C-alpha cells in the first residue's frame, strides 16, 4: 500500500530525494478531455471543464499529479494571433502576426487577468488547487517557452531564418515573450500550484549554440522569476533533445520532460544529479501496444532512471486521446510494482 500523499511523493522526487515509490504522472491533455467525455473545444474554453477533466483523469488512473493545460497557443492568442478551433482537436494559430518591425513595435505583453483565455486558465487552476491541491501535485502550463512563443508569433520557418538574417529582431521579440511568460507565470503561481510547465517542442530542432543564444537565457529568466515565488518549473521538449540535455538543466528547471528518443540512462548519467527527470515511455507504444508491453517499457525506465530519486515515470509526450485505459493503468501499476524505494542500479 502507498503510504505517502501523492503531492509529497512528487515534491520529494523533485528535491532529488527518495519517496516511498517512483511517482507516476503522464501529462494528459486531449486524453483527459476524451476520458471526461467532452470535445477538445469544450475542454479548452471553460475553466470548469478544464479543471473537472484534469481531476477526473488523475482520479481515473490514480496519478500522483494533475496537469492543467488548455492548449499551446493561448499566450499567442492573447497577444493577437487568431486561432483555428477544430471541434475535437487542439487549436492552432492561423497566421503569424509579427512580420515587420512595425508589427514588432505594436506587440504588447498581455494581461493574464484580462486577455484571451489566460484568465480562464488561471481560474481553472484556482478550482484544481482548491479541490485537490492538498493531495495531488498540481502542474499548470504557462505553456510555451519564450523561444517557442516567438516561433508562434513570427512563424517557425521565419524564426529560424531570423537567427541568420536578423538576430536582433528575434532578441527583441524574445524580450516581449519572456515578459509575457513571467507575468502569466506570476498570475498562475498566485493560485497555489506547485509547478508550472513550459514547453519548447521545437528546441530539439536547433543547434546547441542556437539554443544557448535564443532559448536558454530567456528560459532562465522565467524560471528565476518562478523560483522567487516558490514555484518549481518543468521544461518540456519533443523529439530527440539529447544534444541539449545539459543546456536544459542549465536553465535552472526543476524537472525536465523528454521524449522516448532520448536514452533515459544517458540522461540520468548526464544531468540526473542536477534536475529531476520525467519520462519517457514511448507514447506510440502506450497508444498501440499491450498493457504487458507498457509495463515492460515502464520497468525499463525505472531501472535506468529511478535509483537515488529524482525521477517521475511518464510517457515521452502527451498520450493520444484514444489511448486505451488499460495501457495507462499498466503504466501506473508498473510504478507501484517496480518503483518501491530504495532502488539501486
Amino acid at each position, binding site marked *: 500500500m502507498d503510504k505517502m500523499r501523492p503531492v509529497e511523493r512528487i515534491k520529494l522526487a523533485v528535491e532529488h530525494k527518495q519517496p516511498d515509490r517512483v511517482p507516476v504522472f503522464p501529462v494528459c491533455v486531449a486524453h483527459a478531455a476524451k476520458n471526461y467525455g467532452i470535445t477538445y473545444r469544450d475542454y479548452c474554453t471553460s475553466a470548469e471543464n478544464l479543471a473537472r477533466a484534469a481531476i477526473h483523469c488523475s482520479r481515473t488512473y490514480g496519478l500522483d499529479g494533475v496537469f492543467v493545460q488548455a492548449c499551446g497557443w493561448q499566450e499567442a492568442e492573447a497577444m493577437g494571433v487568431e486561432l483555428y478551433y477544430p471541434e475535437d482537436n487542439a487549436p492552432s494559430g492561423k497566421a503569424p502576426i509579427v512580420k515587420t518591425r512595425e508589427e514588432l513595435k505594436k506587440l504588447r505583453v498581455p494581461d493574464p487577468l484580462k486577455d484571451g483565455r489566460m484568465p480562464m486558465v488561471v481560474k481553472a487552476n484556482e478550482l484544481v488547487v482548491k479541490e485537490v491541491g492538498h493531495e495531488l501535485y498540481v502542474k499548470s502550463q504557462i505553456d510555451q517557452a519564450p523561444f517557442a512563443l516567438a516561433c508562434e508569433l513570427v512563424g517557425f520557418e521565419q524564426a529560424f531564418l531570423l537567427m541568420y538574417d536578423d538576430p536582433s529582431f528575434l532578441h527583441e521579440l524574445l524580450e516581449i515573450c519572456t515578459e509575457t511568460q513571467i507575468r502569466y507565470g506570476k498570475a498562475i503561481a498566485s493560485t497555489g500550484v506547485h509547478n508550472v510547465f513550459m514547453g519548447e517542442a521545437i528546441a530539439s530542432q536547433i543547434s546547441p549554440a542556437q539554443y544557448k543564444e535564443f532559448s536558454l537565457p530567456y528560459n532562465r529568466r522565467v524560471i528565476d522569476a518562478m523560483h522567487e515565488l516558490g514555484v518549481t518549473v518543468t521544461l518540456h521538449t519533443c523529439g530527440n533533445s539529447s544534444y541539449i540535455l545539459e543546456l536544459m538543466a542549465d536553465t535552472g528547471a526543476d524537472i525536465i520532460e523528454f521524449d522516448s528518443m532520448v536514452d533515459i540512462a544517458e540522461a540520468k548519467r548526464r544531468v540526473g544529479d542536477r534536475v529531476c527527470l520525467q519520462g519517457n515511455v514511448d507514447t506510440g507504444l502506450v497508444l498501440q501496444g499491450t498493457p504487458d508491453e507498457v509495463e515492460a517499457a515502464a520497468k525499463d525506465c525505472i531501472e535506468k532512471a529511478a535509483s537515488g530519486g529524482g525521477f517521475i515515470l511518464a510517457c515521452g509526450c502527451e*498520450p493520444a486521446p484514444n489511448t486505451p485505459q488499460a495501457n495507462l493503468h499498466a503504466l501506473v501499476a508498473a510504478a507501484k510494482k517496480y518503483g518501491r524505494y530504495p532502488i539501486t542500479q
Partner: protein
Amino acid sequence: MSDTLKQLTEAVIAGNATLAGKITEQALAEGIAPTKVLTDGLIAGMSVVGVRFKAEEIFVPEVLIAARAMKTGVEILRPRLAGEAVPMAGTIVLGTVQGDLHDIGKNLVAMMMEGVGFKVIDLGVNVAPERFVEAINEHEPDLVGMSALLTTTMPMMKETLEAFKAAGVRGRVKVVVGGAPVNENFARQIGADGYAPDAGSAADLAKALVVTG
C-alpha cells in the same frame, strides 16, 4: 568539375542565397548547360546538406537557409530550363494529415525531395484523405508522403491509407510516413511502405523506393 560549380555547391551548403544567385548567373555566362548547373551545382550542394543533417552535424535552420540559397539559383535557371528535358527522380505528393496543422517537418521533407531531384506536389496541412486520393488521380505520383506531428493525429495516417484502399489507388503508389510521434513499428502496423526519422533519410528512402518500384 568546374571551379564555378564547386563554388556554387559551397554557396548552397553555406546557405548564402546572394552568392548562390550570383554564381548561378556566372555559370550560365560561362556557357555551362543549365541542367548541369542545376544537378552538379545546386542539387549537389543540397545533397551534402541532407547528409550532414542526417548525421546530426547541422540542424533545421541551416537546412532552411541552404534550401533558400538553392531556390534562388533555381529561380534564375527556370527560364533557361524551360523546354530542356530535366531528369527527375520521380513525383511525390506530400501533406500533413487531417487535423494536424504543422508544416515545418513536411516542408523540410519537401525541400530535401526537391534537393535530390523529385517533383514535389505539396498539398499543405490538414489534408483530408479524399484530397490525397484526388491528388493521386491527378498527378499520378510515384510516392505519397504523410506527416503528423501530434500523437493525436497519427491515427489519421491509418485512416488515410484505408481511404486509398477504398478508392482503389493504394497499389499505384508507395506510401511513406514520418513525424515526431511516428516510428518504424507504427509505419509497419498501419501498412505504410516506409518510414523515415528525418528529412534527409526521407529523401534517401524515396529514391530507394522508386528504384525498387
